[in-house]
């Protein structure tokens, strides 16, 4: 190594001197303002640089405000034009319910229980589907054996599994987690498999030429190359997990936010229906944000 290093050093030193490619010129983000800029000017520059983002936030806020206003007006005047807003609760009524619910341990229990089911079902799906997809992508026999079965089962919506699930599992809780699991399992598996099929074979060759054996090719090439698709699968899978969970809770649950929403309808607690819906929306949004964040952490080379 020493030898190579020295020889390459000599070779490099000459050629670099010749090379009309000064390192500093090619570095895009190493330029720092030469003089210290005063904080007011800096703030101005920051605003200027981020004006697209600021604009998006402002427009988004206006859009949400308009939506709330429309909702408010439609319910205040109890509009009835084929679509009936007669019984729809107003934003104020929902807000009041929300404040009360925040101090209601029963409501929080519903939310926590749904979250627990999502975490268990989704994690189980990820832990099984990702390795399975990687193995199916790498070994043809595994793919040929497993793929036909998954293709037959995949089009069946998770909700259609409710009766079967109740038969299969001894407790209600387990069958609901199983349905959540099924919802996220297939998107994760299919995306992982797809990612494996797109791995650049030249990168595999490059690794082989550097002395990599099967395990390191798997770990250092196939896995990181597939990771972006795995995260696409996780994002889609999380969405479907919520859909499946809420449906399962509405049909066979005794707890959970889906059950809460359905029960509110039976008990004529109209504001609770909307509270449940908004809660589901926020939880879904939050869980996909968590996955996006994890994706950024796991794939630092894809930043910006």
């Amino acid at each position: 190594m020493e030898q190579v290093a020295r020889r390459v050093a000599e070779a490099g030193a000459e050629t670099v001197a010749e090379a009309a490619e000064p390192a500093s010129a090619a570095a895009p983000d190493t330029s720092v303002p030469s003089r210290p800029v005063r904080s007011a000017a800096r703030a101005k520059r920051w605003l200027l640089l981020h004006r697209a983002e600021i604009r998006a936030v402002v427009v988004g806020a206006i859009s949400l405000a308009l939506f709330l206003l429309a909702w408010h007006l439609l319910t205040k005047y109890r509009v009835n034009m084929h679509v009936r807003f007669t019984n729809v609760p107003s934003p104020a009524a929902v807000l009041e319910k929300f404040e009360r619910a925040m101090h209601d341990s029963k409501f929080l229990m519903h939310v926590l229980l749904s979250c627990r089911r999502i975490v268990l079902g989704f994690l189980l799906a990820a832990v099984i589907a990702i390795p399975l997809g990687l193995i199916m992508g790498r070994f043809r026999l595994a793919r040929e054996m497993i793929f036909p079965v998954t293709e037959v089962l995949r089009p069946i919506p998770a909700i259609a599994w409710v009766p079967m699930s109740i038969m299969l599992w001894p407790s209600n809780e387990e069958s609901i987690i199983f349905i959540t699991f099924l919802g996220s399992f297939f998107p994760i598996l299919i995306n992982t498999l797809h990612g494996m099929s797109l791995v650049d074979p030249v990168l595999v060759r490059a690794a082989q030429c550097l002395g990599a054996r099967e395990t390191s090719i798997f770990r250092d090439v196939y896995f990181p190359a597939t990771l972006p698709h795995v995260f696409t699968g996780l994002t889609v899978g999380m969405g479907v997990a919520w859909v499946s969970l809420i449906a399962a809770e509405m049909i066979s649950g005794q707890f959970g936010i889906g059950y809460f929403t359905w029960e509110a309808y039976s008990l004529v607690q109209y504001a609770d229906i909307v509270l449940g819906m908004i809660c589901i929306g926020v939880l879904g949004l939050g869980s996909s944000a968590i996955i996006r964040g994890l994706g950024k952490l796991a794939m630092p080379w894809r930043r910006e």
Partner: protein
Amino acid sequence: MIPATKSEQPRGHIEVADFALSYDTIDGAVEAVTKANVHVEPGEFVSIVGPSGCGKSTLLNAVAGFLKPTSGTVTLDGEAIDGPSADRGMVFQQYSLFPWKTVRENVEFGLKMRGMDRFNRERAARTLLGLAGLSAFESHYPERLSGGMKQRVGIVRALATGPKVLLLDEPFGALDAQTRVIMQQILTNMWQRLKISVLFVTHDIDEAIFLSDRVYCMTARPGTIKAEIAIPLERPRQQAMMMSSEFLALRRGLMSLIREESLKAMGGEVDDLALQGLSIDLRGQTLADVV
């Protein structure tokens, strides 16, 4: 780290003998390369030129161990090549850096595969990168580098493990003309210091003459060696040499060899006559007149 060279055995002697490779198709076997004989002496710089699709990359991939010959033998220092290994470093046209590894991690990869510990690996990679003028970029991801820098990393990565031979498959094909000339100089400099055998595939005749000790010229498919030309130009070579009469004579010779083959590769309709006819038709007129 580098295998002990004390016993001064010849290292990096490539011998390709009676090489043939064919693919099976529905119409039967199609020959990509036939009866090719190529050798590279230890420390020699040898190029293969030929029209596109002539099988020069096929030949290189067989030396790398990715393809097995249908008949004939491929040996390195007398031993038959059986699959890819780190004793044959390879540089690809598409750079093929691992996008998820930083520049330094890319260079370290081969060393890691041999089980070198992290400390020594980092030190070795830093030294090599410093020498290739890439120190400032060691923690960048490849995506942020220019093509020339990427290929510099590619070459350094292939050399880091101390291979016996370096195989290059049109490594500068995707670079602009200026960067390409600089990269050619970097490569010759490294090669001269390392005394490593090089097998270089290109379709650029100037590049082949400028870099090589010998140049093989291949025929159109099925590819075989049409001619072997020694390049007696002295070293170190300067860019100015590309204007010398000696260089131009070599260039003319190779050009006419390749031209025949390129026309053959393009099919029967395009022969010399047709091309001449085209230029006669256009004589005295601008393209706009014709169209």
